[in-house]
């Protein structure tokens, strides 16, 4: 029971990080029909911003703020203005390929400019255990889970309870009509990119103490979050959340109770099943397009 509960919470914690990253996929898809194949590297990069700030002598919390600020600037504003806007005019496919190139460029840049080696990264959650139903559970797992869930709840409140959120949803659903009714569509799209940048910075802060800061960290995360987004539903934020949590739990339980050797195959198996039997994802909605 103790083991199962620990595995479940560790799985949910990992899944929550996948969910935070997967939300970025769905947000960008909804507002600009963009699939960002550099999303994993977007999670890797903020940790290096923070490490670089710490190397300059800043205390950890200040370095975190600097990291988040730089992420908003580079992974939000610059990403949109320098790459997405010019490429999107040529269609979704050239943009998708451009993000693949960006993924390689980011990895290689970190490798060259910082280091190819892994680096330790401080945790925002202290080590130790807390009692849950009489079972000792890792405080770090719980902390990661709580922070990630809070972020998702905050995002949901923003989207459903605020005027800006409603405008962003309207933009996602039909940008032409949104423009007609006076919504500043371009600004709403920019907000989406900034939210994505904030989410990846948060994901980076939570995952790097476990995965270590390394230029290649994003490969694993990007793939897992992409699968999570498809499994949950690429066009729904709640789908990305469900997909992320499900993937984290299934991966951990399968590795513990089925086979550690085949654990890498489990998410892919899940993906195939979803694509075959529910291509819109668990919570996604069917989209039809004219061609």
């Amino acid at each position, binding site marked *: 029971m103790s083991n199962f509960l620990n595995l479940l919470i560790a799985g949910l914690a990992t899944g929550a990080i996948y969910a935070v990253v997967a939300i970025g996929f769905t947000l960008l898809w909804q507002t600009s029909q963009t699939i960002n194949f550099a999303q994993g590297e977007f999670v890797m990069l903020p940790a290096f911003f923070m490490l670089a700030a710490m190397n300059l002598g800043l205390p950890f919390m200040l370095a975190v703020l600097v990291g988040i600020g730089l992420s908003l600037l580079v992974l939000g504003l610059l990403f949109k203005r320098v790459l997405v806007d010019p490429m999107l005019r040529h269609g979704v496919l050239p943009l998708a390929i451009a993000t693949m190139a960006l993924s390689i460029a980011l990895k290689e840049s970190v490798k060259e400019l910082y280091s190819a080696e892994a680096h330790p990264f401080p945790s925002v959650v202290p080590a130790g255990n807390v009692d849950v139903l009489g079972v000792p559970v890792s405080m770090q797992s719980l902390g990661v889970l709580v922070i990630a869930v809070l972020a998702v709840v905050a995002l949901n409140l923003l989207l459903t309870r605020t005027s800006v959120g409603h405008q962003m949803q309207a933009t996602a659903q039909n940008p032409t009509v949104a423009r007609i009714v006076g919504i500043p569509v371009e600004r709403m799209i920019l907000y989406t990119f900034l939210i994505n940048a904030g989410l990846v910075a948060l994901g980076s802060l939570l995952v790097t103490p*476990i995965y270590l800061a390394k230029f290649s960290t994003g490969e694993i995360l990007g793939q897992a979050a992409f699968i999570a987004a498809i499994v949950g539903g690429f066009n729904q934020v709640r789908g990305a959340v469900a997909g992320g949590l499900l993937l984290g739990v299934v991966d951990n339980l399968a590795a*513990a109770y089925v086979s*550690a050797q085949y654990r890498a195959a489990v998410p892919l198996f899940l993906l195939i099943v979803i694509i075959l039997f529910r291509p819109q994802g668990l919570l996604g909605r069917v989209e039809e397009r004219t061609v």
Partner: protein
Amino acid sequence: MKVLKTTFAALAGLAALTAAHAQSGGTIKLANVAELSGPGATVGTNWKNGIDLAVAEINEKGGILGRKLEVTHADSQSNPGIARAQVQKALDGEPYVLLGPGYSGSVKVTASLAQQAEVPQIMGGEAAELTKAGHTHLFRTSFGQQSSMPKVAAYLADDLKAKSVAVVWVNNDFGKGGRDVITAELQKRNVKVAADISTEAGQADFAADVAKVKASGADAAFIYLNEEESARILKEIKRQNLTLPLIGETTLVGQKVIDLAGEAANGARGHVGLTTDAPVPAIQQFREKFQKRYNYVPDHNGLKGYLAVYVVKAVTEKMGKVDRKAFADTLHGLTISAAQEPGILMDVTYDKNGDIDRQGFLVEVENGRQVVKKVLPKLGN
């Protein structure tokens, strides 16, 4: 016509001079192929820096037999396929000696190339099978698993009195080799393998693996992963509050693992063939020089790279000539003493397979540092 004759004579003279220079003088070329990126970047970077330090020292003192060393570095990206291509490219440059790779899987696929080219290969791999394939030009810089695992198994059975052990290993040539040898050695000593847990190179999440170790009820865990994964599993073990003894090899208690895992590394124990914390003055001096030059504490791979170059120096000076073909014959069965060649740091003997015999250490991580608990003498003593 006279001008033409003079020109031909001058060209012929120049060609003769160039040939003579190439044979007797010029630099001695070493080619290094290592894991400079990818999961093995820690291994390869330390190895490379160790090589560069040794080359700089030797060149500062006039080189080997009056000739300076020149080393080229190529990145295998921790990928055996790329390692093979890089080694082929390096061999095309006709180096005197090939250094690396560090990963056993990469050594396995490149040893035959060096053998065909008759170029001595001094590498960092530790898988037992590497020196059993009949490659006469392949040499280690550290113990093979067949030398180290019996010592680890003996420690588990005799010192810790463990009746059952959980074995966690990385599913590559290095990990599989170590797992096979330790399992056999444990069985010889009537120690049960309570859990046999395979993990992947580059794996980030070890929650399930640690839970399996916990559920196995083993008296101790033997952890045999690469450095970064070792750090991750140590952190996870701390997160899950697992308190059983953690035993491993160099890759569990190396300095890089300690740096990455932080407090979680404390208490981990292991057998190490090379450690910069060894109570050997020459190794302490190496550590200081390395730290001064690169601004970090090297792990055993830094030592391996450093020693590889000094093996080249010792063998070449023993031969009294730069002769690639005679190199392997000279090194087989050779004992290099630190008294004769201080750069070799500790006396070492090479056998006919390219395996080494040297003193080793049992260490424990205490307060973020390796502490040597026991010095294990050379087997040949």
